[in-house]
């Protein structure tokens, strides 16, 4: 994972007088799953558009698999699969017709590929139905199938689980993980659902107001921001929270506690991604 697949260096982008990205730098390693986290309008979607060469940065440089999106946008778009927030399907065409159309645009030669993907995402029964009649979740799954038609090396997923039911979310999360492990696909994931991000991402990039305010693996971020571990313990007496001087103190604390009491469960509550997200934003806000 050492080789960088995507590099954005000191990117700036404005829409009129409104700055969207400012001195924005981030990297994504080959085969990595990176989560872009940030509130609405923090620049997640714009950075994906810039990387794919459909928008041009005002300053800075971008490379994707060694290509420059300004001059080699087509080569990048051939490597990339994209699921945008709205998916962008032709509602008067069936699911299968949509996939066949995009397969032609992406130069897919495997004629059975659209059908195989419809099957993979549980849409075989709806393949002859017009996309206009699909539920939000079905459109999302079809969008994912579309993004995977040409077996991309890089996958950009903007809110891939929005509108999905719990089974749909589970299916998408498992598929993303499997795809990354099996094919080594590099994945950039934007989502507000932090628990799901935590399940799949190797690394995170935190955005705020068009700037990268932090990036790193969970362990790196935890080491930087969590100085105190809060352990929620369930015993016969009930549930209690204990403040410890870091996660390394947990084993000794639990050894000592289990000698005195019956312990039914113990969870670190302030070290999940959500806690990190708010901590990082709080620190960035202070700075």
């Amino acid at each position, binding site marked *: 994972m050492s080789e960088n697949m995507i590099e954005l260096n000191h990117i700036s982008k404005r829409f009129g007088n409104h700055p969207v990205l400012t001195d924005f730098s981030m990297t994504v390693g080959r085969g990595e799953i990176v989560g872009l986290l940030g509130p609405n309008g923090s620049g997640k979607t714009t950075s994906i558009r810039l990387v794919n*060469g459909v*928008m041009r940065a005002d300053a800075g440089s971008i490379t994707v698999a060694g290509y420059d999106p300004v001059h080699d946008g087509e080569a990048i778009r051939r490597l990339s699969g994209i699921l945008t927030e709205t998916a*962008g399907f032709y509602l008067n065409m069936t699911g299968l017709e949509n996939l066949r159309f995009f397969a032609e645009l992406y130069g897919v030669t495997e004629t059975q590929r659209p059908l195989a993907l419809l099957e993979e995402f549980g849409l075989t029964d709806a393949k002859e139905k017009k996309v206009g009649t699909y539920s939000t979740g079905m459109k999302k799954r079809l969008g994912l199938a579309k993004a995977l038609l040409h077996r991309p090396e890089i996958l950009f997923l903007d809110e891939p689980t929005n509108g999905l039911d719990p089974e749909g979310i589970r299916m998408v999360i498992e598929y993303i993980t499997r795809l990354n492990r099996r094919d080594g696909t590099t994945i950039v994931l934007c989502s507000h659902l932090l628990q799901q991000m935590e399940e799949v991402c190797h690394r995170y990039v935190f955005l705020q107001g068009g700037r990268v305010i932090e990036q790193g693996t969970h362990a790196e971020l935890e080491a930087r921001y969590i100085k105190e571990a809060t352990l929620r313990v369930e015993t016969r007496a009930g549930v209690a929270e204990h403040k410890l001087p870091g996660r390394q103190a947990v084993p000794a604390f639990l050894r000592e506690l289990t000698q005195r009491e019956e312990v039914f469960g113990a969870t670190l509550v302030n070290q999940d991604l959500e806690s990190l997200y708010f901590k990082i934003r709080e620190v960035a806000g202070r700075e």
Partner: protein
Amino acid sequence: MNKQAMWAIAKKDMKAIGANLQVWLPMLILPALLGVVLPGVIIGLTAFMSMDSPDMQEMAAWVSKINLGPISAKLAAMTSLNQQIAFVVANYMLAPFFVLIPLMTASVVSADSFAGEKERGTFETLLFAPVDLKSLFAGKFLASFIPAVGLSLASFVLCGITVNALGWKLFRGIFFPQLNWLPMILLVMPLLSAGAVLANVFISAKVSSFQAAYQMGGVLVLPFLLLLVGQMSGVLVLGTGALLAIAAVLAVIDAILLQLLLKNLNRTALFESQVR
């Protein structure tokens, strides 16, 4: 040029026209009205009305004033005034209809080409595909050009059947079309369609809604309406020479429009034109 993608886009758009009654019905009504019903009524009246009626007398006077050049001798050889009027009306006065038909059918489809994609939220997906803009524009061009020329030719054939059937009583043979229609059908009609499509596709790429594209594109029809008035009033009769000259001018205009379009191809600008 990515021909596979170009034809995929063209086929997808043409299929969408066929699937949408609100689009293809108006597209059929205009050619049917201008290409079949109106010529049929005019020729029917000239064929069956008595030359004693004041209207026919007026028309006969009108035909005698028009300078038809080489055709005048052919007219002089005709045995009845009804024949002369029907012949002139069919072979000369209908020409502007076949200018308006490709122009207006091309405008409806091409105004929707990019603006429709923007309105439906599908343009972003198209721009994210690894398709060069020339192929994308070529696909959109064909999706408008093929139906426009196809409908115009079909309405011309139907016009021919109607006119000859109604004029059979007078001529006992086929009197329409004469050779003067060749430059009209083979040159003017396709060149005009191409120009209308290029202009409308260009406008459609720039604006964000179909309505805006259609209204702006509609301005293109105005000069040709003057042509219609000129021809119908006998002020301007388009002979073979005039049609060849018009075809040459149209070819130049088309070439300029194409250059302009190719010069302005810019994915970023196109993308930003649909961001709301």
